């Protein structure tokens, strides 16, 4: 990983230091399910960043799909009378 780090020394684009990036990356690694399993492997910086982006995008897609299904369900259900029951269930999960 140190070899990779030395390449990103260009400070003309941004003032991020190599250490900051490494720090960010090692912490991100713990958040991404994909990478948590490989905690003791050395995962490259760019791989961690890539997986983070992929993970966020996949979460976005999941929410999109859920929004789709929910909007269909809401349209087809006349749930006014069930609303209270559903809210109660939600509060008891």
């Amino acid at each position, binding site marked *: 990983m140190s070899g*990779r780090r030395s*390449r*990103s020394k*260009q400070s*003309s*684009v*941004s003032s*991020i*230091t190599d250490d*900051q*990036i490494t*720090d*960010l990356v090692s*912490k*991100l690694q713990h*958040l*991404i399910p994909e990478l948590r399993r490989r905690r003791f492997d050395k995962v490259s*910086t*760019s791989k961690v*960043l*890539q997986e*983070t*982006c992929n*993970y*966020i*995008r996949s*979460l*976005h897609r*999941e*929410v*999109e799909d*859920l*929004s*789709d*299904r*929910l*909007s269909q*369900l*809401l*349209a*087809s*259900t*006349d*749930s*006014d*009378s*069930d*609303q209270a*029951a*559903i*809210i109660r*269930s*939600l*509060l*008891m*999960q």
Partner: protein
Amino acid sequence: MKRWTTKREHQIYSSKLFQALCRSRRTSSSTSAKELHQTADRVLAITAKGTTRWSRAILAAPLTASTNMKKHKKAKVTVHTRLRKPVVNREKRKLPVVERKLRALRRLVPGCRKLSCNNLLEETSDYIAALEMQVRAMTAITEFLSRGEAQVPTDRLGSIGNM
């Protein structure tokens, strides 16, 4: 960050979201998936109570009921074609791979385009945890609604007796 994993927070968010969705259904005849997604994001951002940049950015963004929001995002992505162009010289470009990916990450987390590395970490972790909760909550609502459809007796919802 821990708050996104508590049961309580999950309950609060899912019930608030459900109420918001029922409210919007009363005012307009149908809720598009986009509007629903937007509502889900806004309620999520409100739950953050203004403590994070991404939540403030979501609440500050203009409301749009059309697909413009998505197209807008795509347009912003293509601005960076100069980074994509020469595949061969990618490693020699002024912006190395890591920088590019950092930039991509910044674009994905709302309101973080110019954030420093350290703050970006905080925002990203919080945002990811919040998104995970959002998925769990919306899944729960979907399940309750689907269940409700199957179980409700016909005298309350006349037309559903066809199943």
